[in-house]
């Protein structure tokens, strides 16, 4: 049966209402560590009545009554008022690849163009547009940010959708890279899709909404609890053919995404880090467990599109000077020095007379796009 676009069925909307209503109960249950009650995926897979019985406790009857009284039209109006379109799992716009989840979200709330959803992640995997998740820590090293940005840019440039969570650090860098390339990218948020959370990512958010889409399982104005982020990660994993973890410490949320991807039988990739860097303990662990080594976008595209489909992705990260042929010798020297780890002005000059030249040269390279200055004043070779 065909439905008007941007409408979701009443049952699915009420289901979403119920999850939002019980969000606090679920949070408490997880915090107390109440056995199976706290097991997120199992709980989210329960039917409405069981969900109530499991989570609501003494408030079960009251909440059940509220649930029966929910007016789906009102929920539709509320979403439309903030420019959020609705797609439920009975809708033909609903990404078929999410059906691989036992606990697939009932409704996707879409900020941005609803048609973009089809273009970005529509249909089943294999048949629909290919997508890759690029995720990682919020506290990323400058290098990891650069890698994430380059991966996002080169994967999107090959026409593959970059899916991520718009968190600080790696996630938003991946989106930013994809936006830079003008390629497809989609963000899945833990809270309401109509708001840029975290607020520091509002530039990325604005661009995503204008050109692509931002989705969420939960209704507008919903303030996320902690469980919402791992829950959001299952959607990221399910939308993507492959999940690439750029940088993750021992207990990082992005490892949860990788685990969900593994459960779904999707590919997992990880960017290797130094064995001494505790920030790379998580990603190196994934590699040990058999994840694909990701050096650059070409490694990802080989896995997702098959060899030979890598588009215009580059594999010359080792020698950035080759990309910028015709540089003045003094700039080549500087670029090589930064590439080999002397990444601050202090490391590059010994006398004040040099300092002016070094600052000048580094800024020249920055304007050329060969270097990027990170907030601490360190320079990284642009990916």
């Amino acid at each position, binding site marked *: 049966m065909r439905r008007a676009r941007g409408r979701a069925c009443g049952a699915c909307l009420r289901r979403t209402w119920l999850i939002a209503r019980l969000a606090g109960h679920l949070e408490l249950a997880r915090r107390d560590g109440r056995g199976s009650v706290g097991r997120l995926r199992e709980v989210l897979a329960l039917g409405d009545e069981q969900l109530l019985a499991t989570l609501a406790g003494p408030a079960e009857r009251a909440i059940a009554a509220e649930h029966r009284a929910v007016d789906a039209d009102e929920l539709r109006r509320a979403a439309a008022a903030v420019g959020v379109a609705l797609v439920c799992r009975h809708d033909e716009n609903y990404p078929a690849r999410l059906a691989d989840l036992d606990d697939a979200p009932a409704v996707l709330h879409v900020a941005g163009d609803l048609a973009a959803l089809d273009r970005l992640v529509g249909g089943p995997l294999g048949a629909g547009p290919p997508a890759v998740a690029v995720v990682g820590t919020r506290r990323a090293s400058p290098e990891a940010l650069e890698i994430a940005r380059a991966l996002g840019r080169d994967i999107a440039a090959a026409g593959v959708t970059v899916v991520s969570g718009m968190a600080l650090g790696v996630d938003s860098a991946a989106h930013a890279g994809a936006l830079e390339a003008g390629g497809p990218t989609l963000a899945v948020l833990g809270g309401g899709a109509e708001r840029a959370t975290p607020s520091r990512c509002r530039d990325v958010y604005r661009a995503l909404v204008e050109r692509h889409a931002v989705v969420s399982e939960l209704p507008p104005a919903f303030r996320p609890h902690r469980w919402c982020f791992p829950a959001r990660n299952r959607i990221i994993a399910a939308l993507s053919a492959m999940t690439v973890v750029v940088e993750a410490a021992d207990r990082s949320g992005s490892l949860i995404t990788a685990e969900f991807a593994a459960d779904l039988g999707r590919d997992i990739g990880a960017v290797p880090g130094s064995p001494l860097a505790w920030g790379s303990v998580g990603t190196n662990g994934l590699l040990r467990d058999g994840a694909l080594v990701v050096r650059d976008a070409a490694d990802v595209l080989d896995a997702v599109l098959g060899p030979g489909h890598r588009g215009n992705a580059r594999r010359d990260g080792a020698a950035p000077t080759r990309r910028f042929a015709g540089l003045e010798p003094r700039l080549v020297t500087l670029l090589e020095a930064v590439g080999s780890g002397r990444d601050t002005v*202090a490391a590059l000059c*010994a006398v004040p007379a040099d*300092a002016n030249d070094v600052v000048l040269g580094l*800024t020249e390279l*920055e304007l050329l796009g060969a270097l990027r*200055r*990170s*907030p601490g004043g360190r320079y990284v070779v642009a990916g």
Partner: protein
Amino acid sequence: MLARVTTVALEGLEPRRVTVEVDLRSGLPNFTVVGLADRAVREARERVHAAILNAGLEFPARRLTVNLAPASLRKAGPHFDLPIALGILAASGQVPPAPLEHVAVFGELSLGGELRPCRGALAAAEGAARWGLRQLLVPVERLEEAALVDGVEVLGALTLGDAAAVLRGEAEAVAPTRARSARADEPAVLDLADVRGHADVLAALTIAAAGGHNLLLSGPPGIGKTMLARRLPTILPPLHRDEALEVTRIHSIAGLHTTGGLVERRPFRAPHHTISASGLVGGGAPPLPGEASLAHHGVLFLDELSEYPRTTLEALRQPLEDGRVGIVRGQRTAIFPTRFMLVAATNPCPCGHAPTRRCRCTEADLARHRRRLSGPLLDRIDLLIHVQRPAAADLARASPSTSERERHRVLEARARQEARLAGTAARTNGQMDARVLRETVVLAPDAERPLREAYERGQLSARGRDRTLRVARTIADLAGSERVRRAHVVAALGYRQDADVEQAA
């Protein structure tokens, strides 16, 4: 019997003429002071009484009324002791009244009759000269300071007895020796030659000093931010005599100037972040200069910038914009000059270790830190310098430059600025506002492009553009170029603030 003695009240930095009138008549022994005097002045009664007796002079056992005229002016401080005592001696015939007509008197008394040094002798001397008085009598400790002023002969006395003898013509007053500078008594000078590593910061300090730019040093704790900031005054041009007099007057009134002579070195003030807004910009009743004025013609260093309460930093806004601050208390306004260079230092995050992995700050901590940093102050800061750990090899190497050499470059750059900025409100590039900038900064044809590129890439904010141009102008001045070339603009972009910090405003 009535006697009159001229003295000085200080209102802000300004001397005001005060006449101490002493009336002595028969009646029950009594001693009253009238004329809007504060507590320290009213306590003068006890000191004056004891000092006169202990100096071996006679305290008249009659009805004694002291009036401080004009009665509408609020008087504060202990320096009315000596004029009151001499007024009493004159009224009781122990010193002749005639010499007091052309002498101003200024000084505090101890119970034993010795003269004690007190604040504001320089301002008092300026007042005496302005009012056409021939002589000023001060405690010997303040002799050199008061003697800095031309047009008034300064007399020094050790005790009340000496002062009376001088007025009677029985003794010679202590005359000032040739005014020496205050430098001799200060600890050994700092020098850039002491610095190991940090070549990039030294280069930036020279730019800041040459253009009078405010700067922000960012870096982990213990890296040397304070050490470097303390050396900034050593490469600033020496104080002109009128500047030095201004600094000496402010420090004297604040009670900081204890060595006598002229302050010849540029002040460096580093108030702790627990300072109040009025401590920073001045305040109190009567108003006293704050740290911003004590740093006049020098450097105001705010370490741990993000730890200062926002209201305190907001109070710096007017001083930074106008170069002076008006403190209104009651009916009166005191104006204090505040033309200082602002040097701020901050850790990159509350724990100090960002962006490395040692940083344990939460996102909320970082956001708060950035919010604290942003706002009106950052708008006035032209240079951002990341201070980083020097390499081991640099630690062993002697500093390649000295304060003297850099000061020489700074002086040349300043001379160029003065010639160009003559007729505008700005004296240095750092003081150029948007209009002066447009009128005096000529860009080479290809120098506009890097600015546009940086803006389009999101590396430069609209507000950052003017700051970059000011710095570029100074870099050009240091290079001896009348035109601002592309290389100057590009190098200036290297000192820009991180756009994301600004946006958190």
